[in-house]
């Protein structure tokens, strides 16, 4: 690992490798872009076991090549870590070209996962994988404790890349719309095909709590909204916006309007409402009244201050969203609570709270659940931990080199 002790032959070897690998990489770039241009196809990442086979195949080829590295010097050049340099450049270049020049993301469309990849991307990923495999296998053949940092980083990268290929092929995501007291029997996959759910679920209750909403002054003539970041409709609080002092007499999170007054009634369709006293600090004129952001049943209500200014209530932000579900296909019915950031695992799937009827907000009787299978995630974490370990080794090593240099 110590760069300053290397002999001249090795440095020249590395230059040969670099030039050779750069040539191949440049060729691959031209070839893949040309191919994409002429036979515009996109590759779908296969699922298990085919994706595993691709990785085994590439690693196998790498092992075979690495075995004969002493026979042919160009194979020896390929097995060098140096080849990774142009491979990284190729990968970055293709990412930038596809994203910035073609206006696509790497997947070629807007599906968030690149399970339909363009050819140059596929070629650059596979080339990176081959080069990584070659370097790792060579380093394992010629194990040297000096190389341990680079070995860990390369091996970590190899794991992450392989796991990413595996996970892209095997990732499953189903969206289930389930209504309160009803059972979900169908789900939608990522191409919006309706399929049967892997296990039946009943939504017992959907729960959403909200923060108190923001109060703002709307200037209709200029189409501007003025707000104070820490001013919310909290009972008893006072806020100052523009020339107005806004005093919140009381805030009701669930209210119904009777005549011109709101009364607390926590029933489906009720809306947040606040009673305000607003004083203009320059004219001392005082107005009072109600504001409400409305609900799917009640209309929005603003409070007129003068010809162009109104006080308005923003739609409250959600604080906590969760679903009380019963899984019916378990050994015996299983009650679970899934909330945002706290998915529940069942039968290889993870159950996520992803949405609700945004029109009805806290009165939503619909809960949108995602069922996700990402079987190779542990490998991705493992790979990243390997990279982290390699970097830490590297750091220690560089400090040692530095101390040596400092002493000299």
């Amino acid at each position, binding site marked *: 690992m110590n*760069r300053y002790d290397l002999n001249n032959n090795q*440095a020249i070897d590395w230059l040969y490798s670099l030039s050779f690998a750069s040539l191949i990489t440049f060729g691959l770039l031209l070839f893949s872009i040309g191919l994409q241009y002429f036979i515009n196809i996109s590759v779908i990442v296969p699922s298990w076991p085919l994706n595993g086979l691709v990785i085994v195949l590439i690693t196998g080829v790498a092992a075979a090549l690495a075995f004969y590295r002493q026979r042919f010097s160009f194979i020896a050049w390929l097995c060098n870590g140096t080849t990774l340099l142009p491979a*990284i450049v190729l990968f970055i270049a293709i990412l930038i070209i596809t*994203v910035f020049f073609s206006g696509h993301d790497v*997947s070629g469309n807007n599906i968030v996962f690149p399970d339909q990849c363009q050819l140059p991307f596929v070629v650059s990923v596979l080339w990176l994988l081959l080069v990584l495999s070659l370097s790792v296998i060579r380093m394992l053949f010629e194990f040297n404790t000096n190389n341990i940092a680079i070995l860990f980083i390369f091996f970590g990268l190899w794991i992450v890349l392989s796991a990413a290929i595996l996970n892209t092929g095997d990732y499953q995501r189903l969206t289930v719309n389930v209504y309160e007291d009803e059972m979900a029997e169908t789900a939608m996959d990522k191409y919006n095909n309706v399929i049967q759910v892997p296990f039946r679920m009943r939504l017992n209750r959907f729960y959403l709590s909200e923060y108190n909403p923001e109060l703002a002054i709307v200037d209709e003539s200029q189409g501007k909204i003025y707000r104070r970041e820490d001013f919310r409709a909290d009972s008893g609080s006072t806020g100052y916006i523009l020339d107005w002092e806004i005093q919140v007499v009381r805030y009701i999170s669930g209210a119904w309007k009777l005549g011109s007054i709101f009364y607390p009634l926590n029933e489906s369709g009720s809306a947040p409402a606040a009673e305000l006293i607003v004083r203009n600090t320059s004219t001392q004129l005082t107005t009072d009244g109600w504001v409400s952001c409305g609900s799917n049943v009640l209309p929005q209500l603003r409070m007129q201050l003068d010809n162009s200014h109104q006080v308005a209530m923003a739609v409250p932000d959600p604080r906590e969203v969760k679903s009380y579900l019963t899984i019916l296909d378990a050994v015996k019915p299983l009650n679970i609570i899934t909330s945002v950031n706290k998915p529940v695992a069942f039968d290889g799937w993870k159950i996520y709270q992803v949405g609700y009827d945004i029109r009805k907000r806290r009165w939503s009787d619909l809960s949108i659940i995602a069922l*996700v299978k990402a079987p190779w995630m542990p490998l991705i*974490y493992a790979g990243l931990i390997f990279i982290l370990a390699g970097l830490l080794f590297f750091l220690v090593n560089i*400090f040692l080199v530095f101390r040596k240099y400092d002493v000299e």
Partner: protein
Amino acid sequence: MWSKFQYYLPITLLGWILALISMAVFRKKQFNFLNVFLVLAGTVPMIMFIADLWFYLQTPPFHTVDEAGIWLSVFLTLSGLLFFLVYGVTWMPMMCIVISSALLIICFFSHQGFLKYLLPVYQSVWFIIHVAAYLVSIALLIISWLMGLRSLVAVYAKRDTKLFLLQADQMVISALVFFTVGLLSGIRWSQQAWGWWWLWNGEELFGLITGLAYLFYLLLRQYLPNHEKLQAWVLSLLFIFSAVSWFLLVNVTG
């Protein structure tokens, strides 16, 4: 609460300006104590503001661009100070202070403020680790970039660059350590919140490109040890990637 920033900011800037003057005038080792004291006299009030904000929000303030900017300025100044304490280089903390001051002034005028009422997806410890680790990583990358520029100057002045590049290496590797921690926690957060682990959006894409580009630099150092001019150029130019990442982040959050 955000209005308190206008009281903390002048104290910080005053401390830092005094530190700049002191570092420019008193370069000898016996004044180290004074210099460190002045840098801290500027930085501690900003840390107190963060603590104040944290206490008020009852969650670590990591959710808006302004909050991130304040953290970055603190991380950057402290990293610069550490660099000064380890290597005795006075220009590094000075540059860091200049950049940090600019960041704080931008924050003061941007009026993004803070976010108290967090949407459920942001109520995650992984998100906090993710942002904090990335900010430390960016601070260290800024220092490595300054070292890159220093090496470039040394290359063209026909001076020895070995020392500068070795110091830069330490910064780059430390930055990559935090970067990897940020990546791990970010993937964990995204997986817990939505069940995605990687979306090819601009922020993630450029994050990945930045990580790979700095790995490229490290390998360049490893495999082409005698091409110091090339290394210095690469290190100086690579910062473009992290800068783009930062602006994308600002855009996304903004």
